[in-house]
């Protein structure tokens, strides 16, 4: 009888969905999380699913199956999740909703490399499907340490879990880091694509789930005043800043010292933001429509493919002991789990050039660093100055040009700096700011990035996920820099600059912009 219903329903649509939500509809599925005992699962993924349930956005019938190596019962697993959900959930913790939600959470113990564990997983998923009825959709979330990615994907394939039944789907979400260089990313992509079709592969970059990142396309393409100015004729330079006041607390030095700022943040998050800022208007808002345009930007990046070019266009740095937020902090090399002779950068600043008609000659500057004065991520678009024939030095000159700032975090919003006449009988010009704050204008809190992204994956919408070619193009650009830093003889390597923790980075990074007649925006 149930099978009969499934067959009948295959080509039907749900007439009651019309106009109730302006997004693709997420479908019921079982979410299998690899690395289920880890921090990401407890702090982000399960609270995100819980909050979707609170908002009524989670399709009824969604089951969660945690897959990890530690020995745990369903109850123990649920208790651990509940403890953290109480602390971190965006909407608080409601016993009634949690009581219902948690019934759908189960635990599956297995080593990541144990083929038998995946066979038992397949049996358990079939059992869940039988109990739940309806479709047997599966969403595999690979949130384990990266060294297990290959094993997990290969074993999913061997157990037949990558294939879906007719009318159902089987998708995989892969967490960062997606490789450590181009070769490993290509290898991982081959493994993924041997296992899942590209259309069923979701490489997550949680920056793209943030409200302001999503708003970038709306800002550019839904406001007629910006797009005509969005090119080399009117824009002088663009800066992307991601500063963090934290260092290596909580034992993160072990991971970070193997990665560094360039690979940890620039290769994924910041190049994704750059793509959204610099891309051409897509032909439509489909996932591939948008990603086709983003990847063209990455392909157009001028390659810094010699140590000399890297030295001229990239600055790497490490902080030395200083003060952040009034506290004394150690230098990078004195941090917990960091090699005392480490040559890993905790700070990086780059000059990038996008060789397209639109962006010819416009430098894009990216900087990212730990132990900077404050936590902030923003994009600033600096427009060219108008001709100064009217407001020349005799009138005090122009106090800077127009700057459009898109704040990603915290205090998401958009501001525009303009020049205005100061009140008075003389002609004195000063900059003023028009400021839009999401939190002030919209009292309602935005969903967490993971909520939006999980829902999109359930709905089959990959727009906010990175495609294979995007990831590889980004690595291609990054690889040249990494090679210049680490693979050439020591005396030819670009120097490692130092700066005092709590300052805005090394002097060399300031010089990078000064050479172009620019300066970093003061945050």
């Amino acid at each position: 009888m149930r099978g009969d219903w499934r067959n009948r329903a295959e080509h039907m649509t749900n007439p009651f969905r019309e106009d109730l939500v302006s997004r693709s509809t997420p479908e019921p599925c079982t979410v299998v999380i690899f690395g289920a005992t880890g921090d990401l699962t407890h702090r982000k993924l399960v609270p995100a699913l819980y909050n979707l349930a609170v908002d009524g956005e989670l399709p009824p019938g969604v089951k969660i199956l945690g897959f990890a190596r530690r020995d745990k019962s369903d109850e123990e697993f649920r208790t651990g999740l509940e403890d953290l959900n109480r602390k971190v959930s965006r909407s608080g913790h409601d016993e009634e909703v949690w009581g219902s939600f948690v019934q759908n959470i189960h635990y599956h113990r297995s080593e990541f490399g144990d083929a038998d564990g995946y066979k038992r997983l397949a049996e358990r998923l079939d059992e869940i499907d039988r109990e739940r009825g309806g479709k047997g959709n599966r969403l595999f979330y690979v949130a384990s340490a990266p060294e297990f990615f290959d094993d997990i994907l290969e074993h999913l394939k061997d157990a037949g879990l990558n294939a879906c039944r007719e009318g159902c789907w089987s998708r995989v979400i892969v967490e960062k880091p997606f490789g450590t260089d181009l070769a490993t990313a290509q290898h991982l992509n081959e493994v993924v694509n041997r296992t899942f079709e590209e259309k069923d592969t979701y490489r997550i970059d949680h920056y793209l789930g943030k409200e302001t990142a999503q708003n970038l396309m709306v800002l550019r393409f839904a406001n007629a005043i910006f797009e005509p100015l969005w090119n080399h004729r009117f824009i002088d330079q663009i800066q992307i800043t991601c500063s963090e006041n934290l260092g290596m607390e909580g034992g993160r030095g072990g991971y970070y010292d193997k990665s560094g700022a360039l690979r940890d943040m620039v290769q994924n998050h910041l190049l994704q933001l750059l793509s959204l800022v610099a891309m051409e208007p897509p032909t439509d808002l489909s996932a591939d429509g948008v990603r086709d345009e983003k990847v063209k930007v990455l392909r157009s990046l001028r390659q810094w493919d010699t140590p000399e070019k890297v030295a001229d266009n990239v600055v790497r740095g490490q902080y030395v002991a200083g003060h952040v937020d009034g506290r004394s902090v150690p230098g990078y090399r004195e941090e917990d789990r960091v090699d005392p002779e480490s040559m890993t950068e905790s700070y990086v600043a780059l000059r990038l050039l996008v060789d397209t008609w639109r962006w010819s000659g416009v430098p894009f500057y990216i900087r990212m660093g730990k132990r900077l004065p404050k936590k902030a991520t923003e994009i600033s678009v600096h427009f060219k100055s108008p001709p100064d024939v009217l407001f020349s030095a005799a009138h005090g000159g122009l106090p800077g040009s127009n700057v459009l700032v898109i704040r990603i975090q915290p205090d998401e919003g958009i501001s525009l700096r303009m020049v205005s006449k100061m009140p008075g009988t003389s002609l004195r010009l000063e900059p003023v700011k028009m400021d839009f704050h999401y939190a002030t204008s919209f009292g309602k809190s935005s969903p967490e990035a993971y909520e939006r992204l999980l829902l999109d994956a359930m709905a089959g919408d990959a727009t906010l996920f990175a495609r294979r070619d995007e990831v590889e193009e980004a690595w291609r650009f990054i690889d040249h820099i990494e090679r210049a830093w680490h693979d050439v003889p020591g005396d030819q390597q670009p120097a490692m600059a130092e700066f005092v923790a709590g300052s805005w980075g090394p002097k060399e990074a300031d010089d990078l912009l000064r050479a172009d007649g620019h300066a970093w925006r003061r945050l």
Partner: protein
Amino acid sequence: MSETLEMHPELGREVEIGSIDRELHQLWAEDEARTNASLINLAVYSERPGALEENSRTIRELTREHACRALLIGIDRDAGKTSIRAWITAHCHLSHGHKSVCCEQIAFALTGRATGRLRNTVFAHLNSDLPMVVWWQGELSPIFSERFHGLIDRFVFDSAEWRDPRESFGRIEEAMEHSRQMIIHDLAWSRSHQMRVSLAALFDDPVAQAALPAIDRVEIVHHPDQHCAALQLLAWLAVQAGWRDGLELDLALSGESRGGYSFENQGGVPVVATLKADPQSAAVGALVLRGGEVTVEVRHEAGARFLTRRLEAPGHAMEAPGPVDPVAPAEVLGEQLSRGGRNRLFLKILPRFMRLLAGREDR
């Protein structure tokens, strides 16, 4: 310093009509630490005595999530004395614990013949370029005319407050003919939003979807004051499921059950719908669809904080909670403002709702 009149504990500083802008400016100049935020002009119209104070309290809550310039309008058309009075204040809230974000409020009390000056007096104080939302409370009065609704971008009303919904909806339809830019929102329709979302979520399940052609019974339980909400919900079901009106069965039903409505689905199967008024019910307390051995239901027990969504079929059972619609009018309005949009679905079901409304009243 301008001359000010008396201070009202809820409405703030009383000001001369001609100096409202100057007084507002002064209000902001007094404290530079505050941020003035506004995304819409929100006019709240009421002819109920004491409504200005009550609506001011409502706006204070509403502005936690919806930054607006609020224009409260209190009207007494029957008063012998002709007068216009105005008060200004600001509702301030801490944003993220540190920044004080404030929304301006101007309250107007118009009595007697001065009510004819409403448009020129009140609407001279809109925040330019921002959309104009009017929340009309109570019955539509003669003031709801073309000169009035021609200025409105969104018109919010509550059909639950109307003695004669058929007549009032007729006036709304006329207004929409004249003011085509105007988007309408019935708070009664908003009260069934989560009920509809929950039903839609249940019908994502292929078992429920496959059972839809076999659904032949519908039951809606509602509070006696929320007949329009229930009837709109039924109209939505019928329109979305493609059910035609089944007049013969309807007439047959009318003798035995006043709450009965009949339809015919796309396969010619008769569908009988029953509306039950229950004073203990939430606004819309239950929506139950049955056909063969399948039951799809969404229930909102009075006072419960969550809906119960349930699907039952042979060998297949599913139950999950869903969010409920708010009860207080300000919260319902707040949810509606958050959703925005052109409310196309409501316009789509409106003709069917009007037919159902007419059919019921003709009996």
